[in-house]
């Protein structure tokens, strides 16, 4: 299985499109860092204008931890597109190139082949998040320095001591990885139905956009649906920046995401094992 996964990873990293995601993340992270470096004070004043009337905030609020939080909040909404770009191509792209039939005439079981492709997309997702963590967290710490983390919320701010922050980021990135692998597994499932990768990429993004809209609208019918929508649980990496952390809630979200991954991958295997290869 590892041999197959290595072959899939080799193919993924030989494709130029794979590096689009790394380039895009690097560009966005650096742009946000540059903007906050030049004019971060104005951004902070705007964010804290309601609080500053009642409280005086001292210390280095615009520090590396805070900048990383802002970057994650902005970026994690858009990363699914970059994940879908690769995961949606895993089977559909091979069908489009005509190489799927070539692969399946080799003495490799269809289940193993599909799983190796899923593992390769998951490893790609993890590498993308590690890259993002390196740039957003360590890059920001290097540029802005350390300090206590201020977590802005709609009607309040939460302050976390600098010595209590790093583990929260480690868990938050771990949770974000689970969220993004859920997206990868959805794109992977949709990839099995198509013979070009555009379809699965667009379909994945459509599902995420529709679910996100349902999640964000405060309508009783949608509220009843929310617990079952995986997009509702994807942003719960923020749970690690609560004081205290509601572990029950975070674990529940993680299990919902895990359930979706297992469901999407199982469905992919079921369909792929029976699929007639006509491409």
């Amino acid at each position: 299985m590892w041999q197959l996964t290595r072959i899939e990873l080799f193919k993924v990293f030989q494709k130029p499109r794979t590096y689009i995601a790394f380039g895009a993340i690097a560009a966005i992270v650096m742009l946000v860092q540059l903007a906050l470096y030049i004019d971060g004070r104005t951004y902070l004043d705007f964010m804290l204008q309601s609080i500053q009337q009642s409280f005086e905030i001292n210390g280095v609020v615009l520090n590396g931890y805070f900048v990383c939080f802002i970057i994650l909040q902005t970026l994690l909404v858009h990363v699914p597109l970059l994940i879908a770009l690769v995961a949606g191509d895993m089977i559909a792209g091979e069908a489009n190139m005509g190489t799927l039939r070539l692969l399946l005439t080799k003495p490799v079981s269809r289940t193993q082949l599909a799983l190796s492709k899923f593992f390769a997309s998951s490893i790609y997702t993890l590498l993308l998040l590690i890259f993002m963590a390196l740039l957003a967290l360590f890059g920001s710490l290097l540029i802005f320095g350390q300090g206590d983390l201020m977590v802005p919320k709609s009607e309040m701010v939460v302050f976390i001591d600098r010595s209590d922050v790093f583990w929260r980021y480690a868990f938050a990135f771990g949770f974000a990885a689970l969220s993004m692998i859920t997206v990868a597994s959805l794109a992977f499932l949709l990839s099995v139905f198509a013979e070009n990768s555009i379809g699965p990429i667009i379909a994945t993004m459509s599902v995420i956009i529709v679910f996100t809209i349902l999640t964000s609208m405060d309508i009783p019918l949608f509220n009843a649906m929310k617990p079952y929508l995986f997009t509702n649980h994807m942003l719960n990496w923020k749970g690690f920046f609560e004081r205290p952390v509601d572990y029950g809630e975070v674990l529940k979200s993680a299990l919902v995401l895990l359930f979706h991954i297992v469901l999407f991958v199982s469905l992919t295997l079921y369909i792929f094992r029976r699929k007639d290869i006509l491409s």
Partner: protein
Amino acid sequence: MSTLLSVENLSKQFSEIKAVDALSFSVEKGTVCGFLGQNGAGKSTTIRMILTLIQPSSGAVYFQRKEIRRYRKEALSQIGAIIEKPDLYKYLTALQNLKIMARLSGVKRTEAQYRQQLERVGLADRADSKVKTFSQGMKQRLGIACALVHDPAFIVLDEPTNGLDPQGIADVRNLILRLSREEGKTILISSHLLSEVEQIADHMVIIDKGKKLAAGKVSELLHPSETVVHLNAVNLQQAAEVLGQSAWKDQLQVQHDHIAIRLHQEEIPVLAAYLVQHQVGITSLQSRNSLEDLFLSLTTGNQHVAAYAH
């Protein structure tokens, strides 16, 4: 000679269309079997079922007497295949493609062995070039190298000369002959270029609309005692009328530019004399005994016969 591959009562239904209909045939070890049929006859669907790419609606394929779907990995480790055009990873080099295919086949070769494999198909000097820079012929040869990388006993080639220039076709033909004669490989080759198959196959199976029309040794199917004579005349209509009243009237096929007459070799001088006697201006009288004639007579029937004769 033992049977390597056996196709038994194989059928495939795609919604309303029956692509393959109760097809049975076998391929003997060490032979080259031509698999013939017009476009849409069901050749590719059959080949995909042999390679487990498509599930049959009914029937089964046996490789070395074992049901291929149940023993898929074991069977495929001994089969090399090219299905239609050889699509490879265009963004990888020839060598990288070959290595991937070898690893997927469960074999590991040294760098020198891989380069030797590429040399065998005339691509040694392009081993490190990306496939996107290759011509169709080069891709085809690389496809063959990928199909042979694990030294399979059985090779399946679906339309291997598609899109190739005459030199490319000759190269592929020579390679197939070499694999068969020098290395004793068993080969199943489908092609619409019947003259190509005729030159390399010992056995053949002819299908049309998913059904088997004929199968057997090429030499037996071509009836060496019988031949097809192509007659060209100054006035083809007059020739057809004259022949329509002759003993060969039931063995005619009148085409737009010639008349085909099936007869025994020894009847040819008699036919020539008959035509001269009836003042038919013969421009050419050519004896043919090719697979193409047999194929056409089996697949098109006699609908053209006697268009002029009556």
